[in-house]
Structure formats: structure tokens, C-alpha cells
């Protein structure tokens, strides 16, 4: 484990998480969540949990991003309520 690399990824994870909550555009939030998952996957891999990293990459970063985007696709810019 290289602590410098660890620190950089950890900081990026937190930045991505805060950005995904605060960003106004839903599509950007979905993409940021995907980036967050990929960084988390790197962290799992660094810690030696390769199976978990693999699951995070496929489920967290891959498919759930697609699901989020396809759900965002059905929203509009302004609410109709």
C-alpha cells in the first residue's frame, strides 16, 4: 500500500461524493456517482479485496450509472407539479 496514492484517491472520493450531492444537474450527478464508484473500486483493489473491487466496478460504476442515466432521461428541466 502506497500511502500517497491512497491519500490522493481518498480525497478524490470525498470530492466526488460532495460534488454528486451538490451539483444541480441530475445527469452530472449520475456521472459523478459513477466516477465515485470507480475510485472506490480502486481503493478496494489497493486494499487487496479484488473480488469486491470487481463487483464495485461492474455493479456500482457500470450498471447503476446506466440505470441512473436512464431514469434521469425521463425527467424534465422544470418540474410540472
Amino acid at each position, binding site marked *: 500500500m502506497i500511502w500517497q496514492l491512497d491519500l490522493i484517491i481518498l480525497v478524490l472520493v470525498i470530492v466526488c461524493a460532495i460534488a454528486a450531492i451538490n451539483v444541480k444537474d441530475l445527469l452530472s450527478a449520475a456521472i459523478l456517482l459513477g466516477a465515485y464508484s470507480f475510485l472506490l473500486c480502486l481503493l478496494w483493489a489497493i486494499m487487496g479485496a479484488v473480488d469486491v473491487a470487481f463487483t464495485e466496478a461492474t*455493479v456500482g460504476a*457500470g450498471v447503476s450509472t*446506466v440505470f441512473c442515466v*436512464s431514469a434521469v432521461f425521463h425527467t424534465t428541466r422544470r418540474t410540472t407539479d
Partner: protein
Amino acid sequence: MKLIGKMTILLCGILLIVFANKFPEFGDPHSPASTHLSPYYIEHTMADTAVPNMVTSVLADYRGYDTMFETTVILTAGLACFFLLRLPEEEEKEIYFRHVPTGVTIRIEECGAAPEDSDVFQRIDAQWVPRDIIIRSTSRLLMPFIQIFALYVVAHGHHSPGGGFQGGVILGAAVILFAISHNLRTTVAKISETSAAIMSAAGVFIYAGTGALCVMLGENFLNYGALAPLLGTDRVMARSHGILIVEIGVALAVMSVMIWIYYNLSSAGKQDEGL
């Protein structure tokens, strides 16, 4: 109200940080997990199950009961999406087609005969985009390789990272890629919603059925050693093969649930246009 929420989050955060320090160090050999639990798996996995990847053997054999209900949770997620989103199919009154070479739009009334959806006659939906040959052929070209890799991940989970969950998700992602690059109608024509639903239930059935088979052969639920006479091997190899059978069930369930959720989510339950 906002203040209370912020205070709660702050309190929880402080508690988490304070008590995270009480955890054993990363990789500490004297932590309870490393002294009692892990050594058993590390020492006995190879002799018990003949599976080099310990994670797979713990997930599918030692803790097989957990994984069975995880698969059930996935199935429940697919069912929840179906019941929440799916709308009854409507009779389509008018269909619009575009004749691409001339650029003419054709309207077909209720009783008219619609032409086949092809590159010449393209069906126009509410959101029609011109079909891009590069995207379509690239994803077509990629699909078999993605699927082969997914099968490798499922089958090679004994020796390398991977297994039913990851392989199933990759298999589902291949179909989702097809749906994104073509359209949802073409995909639903190839893998119908009914078959996705049946396959997802069948995957869970394979898992639970393997466990039930072990009970029928007079041993504990999901004790794959009982399958040895059926598979024609000794008890250790039977456990290894039992893990593979179960992984195939998981992969089948996860793949079809991913496809099923995508169908309902991308078209808001109408299953006509999609993303």
C-alpha cells in the same frame, strides 16, 4: 427541522470517527477476525472444496445461505421495479415511419399494414434520432467479446476474482449496450420481458434447488458434498462443482434482472421507446 437534521448527521459522523479508531488496525494479525475466523478458511479451503479462490468458496459454499438470499434480494429488486413502473400495454392507433432514402414520413392508421422496421423504413417515436452506423456496428462487434468475457468470469471464479454476480452483471450489460445502441423495441423482440422474468426466477430456483437436492440426498441444505454420487466425483470435487452450479444460477438471475430493470426503467414502464 434542517438544524435537527444537520445536528443528527454531525453527531453520527463524530461517533463514527471516534469509534472507527477503536477498530483493529488494517491487517492486524491479533484482531478477532484474524485469530478465530480467517485462519480456518485459509487453512481448510483447499482441502475442503478444492477451490483456490477463497472468496468464492466462502461466498458460495461456507456462507452459501447468505448468497442465496442475496440472489433473492436481486430478484425482489427486479419485481419491485416491475410492479412500480410497468404500465399496461396500449393499442397503438397510428404509427409513423420514415422512408430514409427519400426522407418521406409515412403515417399508418390502425388497420394498415406496417412495413418491417429496417434501415430503409425506420419507425419514428416521440424521440427519434438518426441511426448511427458506427455506433451500431461497433457495439455489435463488441457484444460477443463482452459475453465471452462474462462467461469466463462466471466459469473462472474458482481460480480468479469473479463469479456469478460479476459475470451476470457483465452479461446483462452486454444486452443493455445492445438496447442503447439500437433501440428498446429490437431488444425486447430478441429477449422478451417474459423470458427475462422466467430466467430470473429460474436462476434463484437453480440455487435453491441445488440446496434442496442436497436435503433430498440426506444431508444439510446447500451441503454440496451430498451431490458426489450424482456428479460421479469425490466429496471435495463435488463441493467445487456445486459452487459452479450455484454460480451459474446466480449469473442467470442477475443477468435477467438487470435486463428486466433496464426495460422498465428506461421506458418508464411502457417498454416501447426506451433510452
